[in-house]
């Protein structure tokens, strides 16, 4: 496990060469990849969303496809289609953009809802159905979608069912002054993406995903996750709370975070660390929340304060909220 944990850290280091000063975000994206999830990057233009996705594909040696979602992109561009062969006797499958390991859906909210919906099956089951024939997409399969929160004219909001399929939603944010100076220096006469080295092979990622699956979770952590999620469903200002799929996403993200920290067990701080990223985009507020300008972030902070993390004793003494089995 230690070897693979080091490799994971190396991936973060490689991506960090390109996306400077955002190590925290990079590690969360990697955690989502290792937890077999999909990532929604929501931020202003030019902060490095696409660059980050490309850097990941390079560092992890994944076959990647990028599709710029525009209003005229059709579902067949995404999932593929059947073409009548020259002899006119049979149909040949022409794969769509999703037939890759890392699918970058750029500006996903700029396309029509029917094209957005074409991703539903792939994201949930890792399968593509075209003309009643179901095919598996290559493994590992990760969707990194980007969307721009400003300039919403001519955009289509992602439906809740689609949002729920994204394991986490992240905002990269603007770099601090020191990082920005670093970016300016780095990009004078070269593309930093050229300096990203391959760290792992595709099979290594699959192995790491299996390791993440086997990370241990104590019963009290299950209870903690459930309590957090239930609070989102019971809050009087929340219309739609986190779904059971969201609970699973939270658990898997916590496992991946533990793995990246070099542990084979989850501690409550792993759950707290990813809770807002996993839950925020799954929550819909009631109109009443507009009074007092309550945001999803405020409510999730409240929930994290109210639900106390469990205390677990390790070998007779109190561990730092940890558990070793």
């Amino acid at each position, binding site marked *: 496990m230690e070897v693979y944990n080091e490799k994971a850290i190396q991936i973060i280091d490689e991506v960090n060469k390109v996306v400077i000063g955002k190590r925290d975000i990079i590690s969360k994206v990697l955690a989502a990849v290792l937890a077999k999830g999909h990532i929604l990057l929501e931020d202003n233009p030019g902060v490095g969303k696409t660059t980050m996705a490309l850097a990941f594909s390079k560092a992890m040696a994944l076959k990647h496809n990028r599709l710029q979602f525009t209003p*005229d992109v059709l579902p067949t561009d995404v999932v593929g289609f059947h073409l009548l062969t020259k002899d006119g006797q049979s149909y040949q499958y022409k794969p769509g953009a999703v037939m890759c390991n890392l699918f970058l859906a750029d500006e996903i909210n700029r396309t029509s809802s029917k094209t957005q919906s074409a991703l539903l099956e792939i994201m949930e089951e890792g399968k593509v159905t075209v003309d009643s024939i179901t095919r598996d997409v290559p493994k590992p399969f990760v969707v990194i979608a980007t969307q721009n929160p400003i300039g919403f004219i*001519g955009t289509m909001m992602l439906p809740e069912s689609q949002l729920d399929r994204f394991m986490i939603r992240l905002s990269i944010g603007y770099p601090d002054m020191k990082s920005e100076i670093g970016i300016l220096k780095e990009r004078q006469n070269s593309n930093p993406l050229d300096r990203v080295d391959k760290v792992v092979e595709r099979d290594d990622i699959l192995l790491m995903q299996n390791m993440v699956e086997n990370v241990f979770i104590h019963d009290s952590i299950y209870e903690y996750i459930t309590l957090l999620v239930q609070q989102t469903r019971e809050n009087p200002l929340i219309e739609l709370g986190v779904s059971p799929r969201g609970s699973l996403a939270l658990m898997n993200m916590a496992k991946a975070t533990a793995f990246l920290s070099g542990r084979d067990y989850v501690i409550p701080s792993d759950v707290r660390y990813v809770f807002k990223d996993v839950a925020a985009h799954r929550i819909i507020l009631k109109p*009443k929340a*507009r009074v*007092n300008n309550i945001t999803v972030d405020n409510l999730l902070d409240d929930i994290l304060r109210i639900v106390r993390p469990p205390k677990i004793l390790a070998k007779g003494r109190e561990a730092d909220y940890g558990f070793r089995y």
Partner: protein
Amino acid sequence: MFRNKLKYIAVIIFAGFLAVLYNDYYMGILFLAVAACPIVLLAVLIYIYLRLEVEFTSVVHVVNKGETMPVSVQIHNPTIFPVAFINVTVCFSNTFLEQDKENRQVFYVSVDSRSTTNASFSLKSDYAGSVIISLSGVRVFDYLKIFSLKKKVHGEIKVAVLPRYYELTGDLLKNGSKIQIESDYYSKTKSGDDPSEVFAIREYREGDRLQRIHWKLSLKQDQLMIKDFSEPLNCSVVIMADLGITGRDRLPDITDSLLECALSLSYSFMLKGQIHYLAWYDKKQRSSRRIRIVTENDFFDAVDGLLGSGPYFDIVDLAAVYYSQYPNDQYTELFYITNIITEERLDSLIWVKAADRRIIYINSEEHSPVKSHSGKRQSMLNSEKLSVKIAETGISLFSVNVSDIKAGLESLNFN
């Protein structure tokens, strides 16, 4: 605590007296122990004080009037020493009503070693507004209550107390209310069907209507171009909520009634699908603010704006301010909700272009009968001049008593 200190000093003096009196080894030890005890207690208290974590939380940020607001103070003691006495003082005040009075609630809690105590309490506000709840201090005592240290806890909780609002079932508008009024304002975010204003020019997309093709531009660009028309932000109805108050007598009652009345009308219009403006005077910005109410989100935006503004005692003529900001607006119906009627205000109301103008007068006099259309208020409106003016201007006047806004509004017959 001062008494406890005196008592303990008395105990030390007594122990010292015994030690001198008996000149015994054990008595000397007893005296030293009694004298050293406060030092040990103080050391323990400082240790606990430094490690104690206090958090002030509430999951409720918006409540209805009269509903309880659960607030909890979470005290986490990670030390091995239990804490017997913690004095928690909570302050709360309604900032909307600008009352100087700050209420306090004090309670004692104890926390076991290495554990967390959750002290919960509930507050209730009888009036709408913005309640600010803060922890003015958490005082930690030693076991003998000789010493205490005050821990500062930053942060406050803001809870919005919503005024009551009802769905009014009767006909609120005259038959002509569905008339579409022309508007100079267009949506900046949404395209519509008004061909007089072009919202955007864009490339052709599958499913676009042929009528929308911009043929000239398409020829120029050598590809089909579409013109999107604008969405006019027209409203045929406006509700003006004048939160001006003449005096501080019965201030909360009158303010609540004004809010209740304006919001009930707006809420009922919203439910009936009648798009309208809800306008009020924002005393912070010194101008009128209005929100076009189409959905529940807009309605609560307006509630937020009203609660953020609050009542005012200055002589503000809302209709005049509104007219100066939107001189070209026209309406079929104008509702003016107020507690003050003067000749000047009636004049200002005439400026605002509306086919029908209605004043809903919030009557704060007790035992005053609620009368509909002809039920003109006596005290403020008993002046001959004002009555003549109202009759001349053709403004309809309705009176609603603060004692029962719902019944008052239900009994009004606008048609």
